[in-house]
């Protein structure tokens, strides 16, 4: 080998070992010098190095690492989590786009920007998480419905486990579409409550021109009212997520339904009965703006903002609560996994 070839060989070796752990570098460099030295006795240096190929690939062979970020073992869970995160991001982008539309009138650029940036961030975060799990070899099973029983996880599958894992009754499964629709409404409603509660009310037009909105709610006290509304919505949100993740009725879903139902009912009761939720000026404002007068017991508007009105709503909420928790308990007991 002439001087230039010597130099090229060293360059090649450097490009291999720079990708390797420090303590292996010297030894592998020595090995490579030996191998290349032997090879050039029968071929040119160019042929020898071409045979050894791309230094980076050679280095990865030396590292003995798998050349993937997420192995097939994790791939299913990865795709599944990614899907959920992407759906959530899509929904929140659409919702914030709708809210922006009301607030600023420009929704298009906002929604696209939101989608791109939060989409990328979500994708990156999920991928990073799974790459870390892969690296440290942490096995998590995210879908309880898939893991069947703890017994199988511990002892591995055997013929006897079939006894404990019947095909689930279809009625025991939770509809994903229902959960997603419920989540979308929760998010939209939360968005409106946070960013634009003033949108709910009576719209006053004068000569075809928009004049003002008479709000249903007591916006002056909104900073006290809002947290309680959000608490209820959040409980509902978590409950829906748990339903979605579990995918079928089980004790955890039942427990979550009961807890979230109680939280939602209490927060509604507090908002309706304790806090000054309703705008006192709503009825006078509407009467004045629309030249109306609400009289008589059978005119619903006379009752607006009264305890009677709140009680009716609370009663409806209570019925919904009973029906929801009731069906969940019924389905869990009848079809759920014990």
């Amino acid at each position, binding site marked *: 080998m002439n001087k230039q070839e010597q130099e090229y060989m060293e360059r090649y070796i450097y490009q291999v070992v720079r990708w390797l752990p420090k303590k292996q570098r010297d030894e592998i460099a020595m*090995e490579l010098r030996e191998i290349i030295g032997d090879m050039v006795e029968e071929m040119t240096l160019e042929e020898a190095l071409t045979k050894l190929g791309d230094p980076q690939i050679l280095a990865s062979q030396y590292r003995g690492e798998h050349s993937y970020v997420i192995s097939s073992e994790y791939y299913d869970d990865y795709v599944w989590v990614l899907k959920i995160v992407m759906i959530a991001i899509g929904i929140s982008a659409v919702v914030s786009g709708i809210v922006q539309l009301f607030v600023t009138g420009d929704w298009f650029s906002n929604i696209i920007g939101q989608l791109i940036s939060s989409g990328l961030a979500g994708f990156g975060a999920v991928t990073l998480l799974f790459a870390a799990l892969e690296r440290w070899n942490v096995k998590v099973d995210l879908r309880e419905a898939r893991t069947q029983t703890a017994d199988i996880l511990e002892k591995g599958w055997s013929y006897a486990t079939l006894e404990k894992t019947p095909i689930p009754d279809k009625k025991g499964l939770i509809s994903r579409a229902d959960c997603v629709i419920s989540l979308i409404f929760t998010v939209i409603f939360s968005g409106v409550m946070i960013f634009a509660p003033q949108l709910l009310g009576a719209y006053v037009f004068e000569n075809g021109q928009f004049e003002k909105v008479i709000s249903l709610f007591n916006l002056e006290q909104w900073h006290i009212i809002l947290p309680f509304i959000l608490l209820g919505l959040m409980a509902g949100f978590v409950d829906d997520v748990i339903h979605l993740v579990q995918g079928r009725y089980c004790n955890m879903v039942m427990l979550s339904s009961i807890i979230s139902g109680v939280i939602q009912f209490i927060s509604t009761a507090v908002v309706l009965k304790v806090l000054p939720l309703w705008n006192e000026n709503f009825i006078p404002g509407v009467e004045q703006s629309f030249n109306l007068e609400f009289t008589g017991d059978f005119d619903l508007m006379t009752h607006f903002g009264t305890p009677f009105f709140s009680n009716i709503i609370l009663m409806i909420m209570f019925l919904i609560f009973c029906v929801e928790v009731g069906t969940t308990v019924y389905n869990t007991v009848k079809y759920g996994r014990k």
Partner: protein
Amino acid sequence: MAEEKDLLGNLILELRRGTLVLSVLSQVQTPKYGYALTQSLENQGIIIEANTLYPLLRRLEKQGLLISEWDTGESKPRKYYRRTQEGERVYKALRTQWQDMSVRMAQLLEEGENYE
């Protein structure tokens, strides 16, 4: 066509990969250095890419099947590999497995041919 060629290439590669360790183990009863090993395999028609073989030798050493020693006496320092006792046992077990498998495979393929 090109796709079929790729597919076939991949399948052949996979088939060969399974025999790699056995091929290498068979050659290192006595100490051999890297390039000599390539040569002796190549002479018998077994082609292993250089960038696969050398890292594989290190891996087998790490697994305890091979042991290596640098010979610095010559003009050029050389690393010699040979089978350890454990490598010996594993090699013999693999060899039996292979012989068994090749008999069965031959039968299987012959049967297949009769149906053609």
